[in-house]
């Protein structure tokens, strides 16, 4: 595929430039078109980047021609190239979907602001993924978070959406501030902000208390941002009350990008041996992760709003990913990355299908949706397939994830963890099965729902696109598995640093 080094910076510049254009245009349709076209270009760029990086190249782009570590550097290897593609594809799909869905949720005159916010959020997410500079991570994190708060506040149930956005703002800012503080400590210890540079200099100050403090602050900040088990409270409300397009986008990307920061910092910057060997990060994360995915799966069973079920399920899935990556083995890391990718597609598809139901019925309350399979067969079929994938039925993407998660746990000798993962899958059968049962059968003879039309084509198209992607990656699992394996080995090996661009095997 055609590739140019400047592509990397375009990924950030393009949405950043498109956002003010949307504001200038002030028209719903035109700004949608601008957003769509820029997003389409981003998808193409990201795929080109991926095909370049997957051959073992590492893209390093010096911003403004200033060489690192003086200047800011964009740094792209396997893991972020993959996630850039995932995020931009999901953004494209949800953007297509948003055109119809926000009609019922946001007043027409505000649409252009919605798209501008969307593009800014995309800028932030892509920026986090692309940059090789620790402070830049914070800046992009705040760009994406601020626009995300704004997007959430636009939600359909205006009142609760505002409160949800406010709570997310408080918690998200605390998380980001902790990350900022941690980065400050790292800078104090090493005198550089370039991540590869920090990685090279950290061994020189190994064991320094400054580094440990920075490490702890970054860990806690990221746990809040990823909505890891004890600090997840912002997530359910945000997912439930945000406009459906936003919650689909959020579910697929926001926490995944935070997870990427986690991988980048603890595997690359601090180094696997330091994070998991010296500081025993795995011992702290694993219990939290296991309790997290188990408890959250149980909580998901008792929710009445489908979006809330999916939100708690998301927290549980993050628990899976954390459990996998805290094993700090190649198997575990591969499993984690596979699940990051697969879950991004699955969860977005689930949220979009719930959005379609919301669009027609105006409610996602499980008690008011008896027998809607008849009215909306395509939407419900998509929900069922994605749900099966979440459970981990064979021939869906979820099966590949589960297979790897469990074999990684067994490989590390953690039989109990494997059993817990399976128990939590049983919970998934219950909470998905419960919804599917409601979709298929009327609640009672008296209370049938009104007959409505199937969701519009422009909403079904992205939905089924995601479903096909997740089924395809389930049948031909090697596509995702190979990518994940590649980036996992790259993260675990000593990555090419600043002074030795080739990288040295440990």
């Amino acid at each position: 595929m055609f590739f140019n080094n400047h592509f990397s910076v375009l990924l950030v510049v393009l949405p950043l430039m498109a956002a003010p254009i949307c504001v200038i245009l002030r028209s719903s349709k035109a700004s949608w078109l601008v957003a769509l076209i820029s997003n389409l270009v981003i998808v193409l760029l990201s795929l080109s980047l991926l095909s370049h990086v997957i051959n073992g190249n590492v893209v390093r782009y010096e911003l403004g021609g200033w060489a690192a570590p003086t200047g800011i550097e964009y740094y792209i290897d396997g893991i972020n190239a993959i996630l850039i593609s995932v995020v931009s594809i999901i953004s494209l799909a949800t953007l297509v979907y948003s055109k119809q869905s926000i009609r019922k949720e946001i007043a027409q005159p505000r649409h252009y602001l919605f798209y501008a916010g969307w593009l800014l959020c995309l800028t932030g997410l892509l920026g986090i993924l692309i940059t090789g500079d620790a402070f830049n991570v914070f800046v992009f994190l705040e760009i994406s978070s601020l626009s995300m708060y704004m997007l959430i506040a636009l939600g359909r149930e205006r009142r609760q959406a505002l409160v949800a956005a406010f709570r997310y703002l408080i918690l998200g800012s605390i998380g980001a501030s902790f990350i900022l503080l941690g980065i400050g400590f790292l800078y104090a210890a090493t005198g550089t902000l370039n991540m590869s540079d920090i990685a090279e200099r950290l061994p020189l100050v190994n064991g320094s208390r400054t580094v440990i403090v920075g490490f702890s602050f970054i860990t806690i900040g990221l746990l809040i941002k990823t909505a890891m088990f004890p600090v997840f409270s912002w997530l359910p409300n945000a997912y439930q009350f945000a406009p459906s397009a936003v919650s689909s986008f959020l579910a697929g990307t926001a926490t995944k990008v935070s997870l990427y920061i986690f991988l980048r910092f603890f595997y690359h910057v601090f180094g696997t041996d330091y994070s998991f060997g010296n500081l025993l990060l795995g011992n702290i994360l694993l219990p939290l992760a296991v309790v997290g995915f188990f408890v959250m799966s149980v909580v998901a069973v008792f929710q009445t709003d489908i979006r809330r079920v999916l939100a708690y399920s998301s927290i549980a899935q993050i628990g899976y990913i954390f459990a996998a990556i805290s094993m700090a083995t190649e198997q575990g890391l591969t499993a984690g990355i596979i699940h990051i990718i697969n879950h991004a597609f699955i969860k977005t598809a689930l949220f979009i299908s719930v959005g379609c139901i919301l669009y027609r019925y105006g409610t996602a309350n499980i008690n008011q949706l008896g027998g809607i399979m008849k009215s909306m067969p395509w939407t419900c079929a998509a929900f069922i397939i994605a749900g099966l994938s979440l459970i981990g039925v064979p021939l869906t993407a979820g099966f590949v994830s589960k297979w790897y998660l469990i074999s990684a746990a067994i490989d590390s000798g953690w039989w109990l963890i494997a059993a817990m993962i399976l128990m939590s899958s049983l919970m998934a059968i219950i909470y998905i099965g419960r919804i599917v049962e409601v979709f298929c059968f009327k609640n009672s003879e008296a209370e049938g729902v009104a007959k409505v039309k199937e969701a519009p084509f422009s909403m079904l198209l992205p939905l089924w696109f995601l479903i096909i992607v997740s089924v395809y990656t389930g049948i031909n699992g090697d596509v995702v598995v190979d990518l994940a394996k590649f980036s996992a080995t790259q993260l675990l090996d000593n990555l090419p640093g600043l002074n030795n661009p080739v990288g040295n095997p440990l």
Partner: protein
Amino acid sequence: MVEWLAFYNDWAVIVIMMAGFYIMIARYNLVKKIIGLSIFQTGIFYFYVGLGKVDNGTAPIFLEPKVIDESAANVASGIAEQTILYSNPLPHVLILTAIVVGVATMALGLALIVRIYEKYGSIEEDDIQAIDSQFICQLDDKK
């Protein structure tokens, strides 16, 4: 004791941050929460500012060689006379960005509070919660 006091700027950071953090947790008033957040972030700004400060360093402005600061420290360290001791400008620049972000966060938070006040008629978190749960109860009654 004296060693402790030597880190007075770090102590200040800790006190300011924790004060802000406490406000955010303990106060139900949304505006106070934002104030707390702002104080919390200010603590971090101080930390960065303190990080860049070098004892006896001047502001990092390029000066003509004539006007060197001939302080004893410089002479003693044997550095050529023309060197000037600067504070490290980088953390200060960084924190300018963070301050901007902080201002944006505060602005957005306040905007949300204005909206919340319009919808709920209150900016007390427990009031809002009460109104929401009442609303849900009403929905249940309708069913």
